[in-house]
């Protein structure tokens, strides 16, 4: 529908070319919904092999950015490169490298857990034996073996999240993009999932997670980006972004200061005022 070949709007700063070595490289992403500009010029590089946390207050544009980065939402302007492949120019090739857990969407919940995983695997073009094998492994890893024949509609919120996560992983993607993966998941399962993700990163995979929980991101992630009001306020290694502070304090500084006025207010370091 929208014409994506048009020139970008008068951007405040020249946009550097996309980083083709990065797992995920976003450049000048804009998205407007009616009157509201949800994402206003997001540039972000997710280095290959990083465990990348995306944090921001509610309505900051996290989900919108991730949707545009995974092919679920067409940006008004800007580009997305997945390991150097332009997602919006060659969606099939780029999507094959991505595993996506979107937030706030349903699953095909009249299928059983095993059927849903099989469906996701077959849609990804895997053969029957591979799908069967990985379905078993994933059900095991997610502690859902006992519920394999239960319809997903009868799953609890945490189980639904886990089966969604499993179906995002079944084709062994190079990049996993997970929107709020730990929401409603019990601590034991969350720890298991974290182990799986860490192992995946250690083997060269890249994980992007969005979260509200700063503590979790600080402990779990190697890199972090703080996003608010549709802008990236800070990005880099967790140590680099938080400096001497805890990530949470740093986040409140960044986001709290942002609220006072428009423009470059976030450059001033006003801490206590809200």
């Amino acid at each position, binding site marked *: 529908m929208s014409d994506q070949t048009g020139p970008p709007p008068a951007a405040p700063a020249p946009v550097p070319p996309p980083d083709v070595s990065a797992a995920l490289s976003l450049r000048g992403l804009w998205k407007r919904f009616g009157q509201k500009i949800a994402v206003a010029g997001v540039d972000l590089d997710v280095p290959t092999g990083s465990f990348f946390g995306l944090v921001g207050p509610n309505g900051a544009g996290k989900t919108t950015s991730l949707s545009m980065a995974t092919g679920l939402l067409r940006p008004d302007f800007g580009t997305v490169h997945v390991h150097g492949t332009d997602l919006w120019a060659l969606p099939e090739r780029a*999507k094959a490298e991505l595993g996506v857990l979107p937030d706030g969407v349903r699953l095909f919940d*009249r299928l*059983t857990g095993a059927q849903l995983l*099989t469906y*996701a695997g077959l849609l990804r073009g895997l053969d029957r034996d591979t799908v069967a094998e990985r379905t078993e492994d994933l059900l095991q890893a997610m502690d859902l073996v006992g519920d394999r024949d*239960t319809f997903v509609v*009868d799953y609890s919120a945490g189980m639904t999240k886990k089966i969604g996560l499993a179906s995002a992983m079944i084709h062994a993607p190079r990049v996993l993009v997970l929107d709020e993966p730990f929401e409603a998941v019990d601590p034991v399962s969350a720890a298991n999932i974290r182990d799986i993700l860490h192992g995946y990163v250690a083997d060269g995979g890249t994980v992007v997670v969005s979260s509200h929980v700063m503590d979790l991101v600080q402990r779990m992630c190697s890199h972090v980006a703080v996003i608010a009001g549709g802008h990236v306020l800070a990005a880099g290694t967790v140590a680099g972004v938080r400096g001497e502070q805890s990530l949470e304090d740093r986040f409140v500084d960044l986001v709290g200061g942002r609220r006072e006025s428009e423009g470059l207010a976030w450059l001033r370091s006003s801490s206590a005022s809200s």
Partner: protein
Amino acid sequence: MVAQLVRLKLTLLANTFRRSVWQTIGLVVGSLYGLGVLVLVVAAAVAGGTADPVVTGHVLTLAGALVVLAWWVVPVFAFGVDATLDPRRFVTFAIPRRTLLAGLALAGLVSIPAAVTTLGALGVSFAWWRQPAALVAALVGGVLATALCVVGSRAATTALAPLLDSRRYREVLAIVAVVPLLLIGPAVGWLADGVEVTVDGAGSDALGAAIAPLAGVVGWTPLGAPWALASAVHDGAWALLAARVAICLGTLALAGVVWDRALARELVTPRGGGSSATAAKGLGWFGRLPATPLGAVAARTATYWVRDPRYAASIAMVPLLPLVLLAVGTTNGAGGVVLLLMAPLAAWLLGFGISNDVGYDNTAFALHVATGVRGRVDRWGRVLPVLVAGLPLCVAFAVVGCAVAGRWDALPAMLGLTAGTLGASLGISSAVSARLVYPVPKPGESPFKSPQGATMATMLAQMATMGIILAVSVPTLALALPAILLPQAALGWAALGVGLVTGVLVLLLGVRWGARTYDRRLPELLQQVMAFG
């Protein structure tokens, strides 16, 4: 607090106007339509009352009883139709139960159906304008009837809420509800026949004689009693009047108590108990169909047609079609010939079933977007199960239809028409569903619940789809109809050829166009269903 609840309901009603232009247009059109019907009904009642108050009183009693019955029964089937004031939403606010009850009862009056019922109940009272005493009784009856409608419907839904909480029960109920809906048509035909016969016979006297005993019985039930008050006054039967008022008040009190009890239980029972999880062994269709993306989409579609009540409801209609048509045929005297309609109708029903498939997927469609399913795969995957299962069924229907009607000569034309209809409806549905997505009941909701604000856009989309299907079927129809009606055997063979060719052609082109559209606007399709919430 009572006033606040009423104000809340008013705000909710007003907000539905503000949500979208379509919604506003839909509501305005709906209201105008309702108002038009209302004016007609009231005018008819007044005219009838002027001419023959006794018979009019009987008719009003019967019609009114149906209205009350509808108020009591429909919400049970179409659960969740008006959940804006679900009592459970007030659990966390410490509102005294009596206050909540009164507030919910009054707020229940604030809705378009309630407004129409109230106006109608009061309006038809003026059938008695010649007799002030009866008029007063009728007005009182109207108020009582409206109260019975609202309180009774609330009592029924609240009391049955524990049952309706179980997913499986809801789904069975939803499919069972198809049956009475399908029988409405034949029932109306039968009634019309009855009226016709009596009118032919001896005018309104005969009609009055026919329904008087029925109205007499219904007048004693809680459904009909409030509507029969004026008749009692008219006849000067004061004891009868007292008895009917007592029935009304007693029922009202009983419904109030039931509602109160159920509400008390509802407020202390947490939601979502009794989860009887259902299970299916193995992979089902996923294990049987080829392990390709196309096979997977087809397996998913086949699974959903059986397991999702929204599809299953339309499947349930197909085997009922012969029964309904047979009923229509015998009542209007046309006999088995009507069964000739069965095959094209079934073909159309099946094909039209996928005309809003993405809307039915709701946001689960995100999986197709994230995995980058190609349009060709998605479209064919949705068409093939319907085609493979539907084609033999429709052919069987055509053969049986011709056999029952004793019209073997019409078989070629029937087959042509059926094949053409199936191909055209599947092809056009595939094309349209990649372009027009309209809100439908969400997964897990009643198949009969029409989502708020959908009406106008839905009607337009459906009418457009049907219009295009009809348009591409014109060549086949132009040959098949004369072939069957004249009858003209040679035309029948031509219809078979043309039907097959157009069916196949429209199917191929429709799927192709749908696949291209799908590939081009995949993310936009997802955003459209996301917008339904």
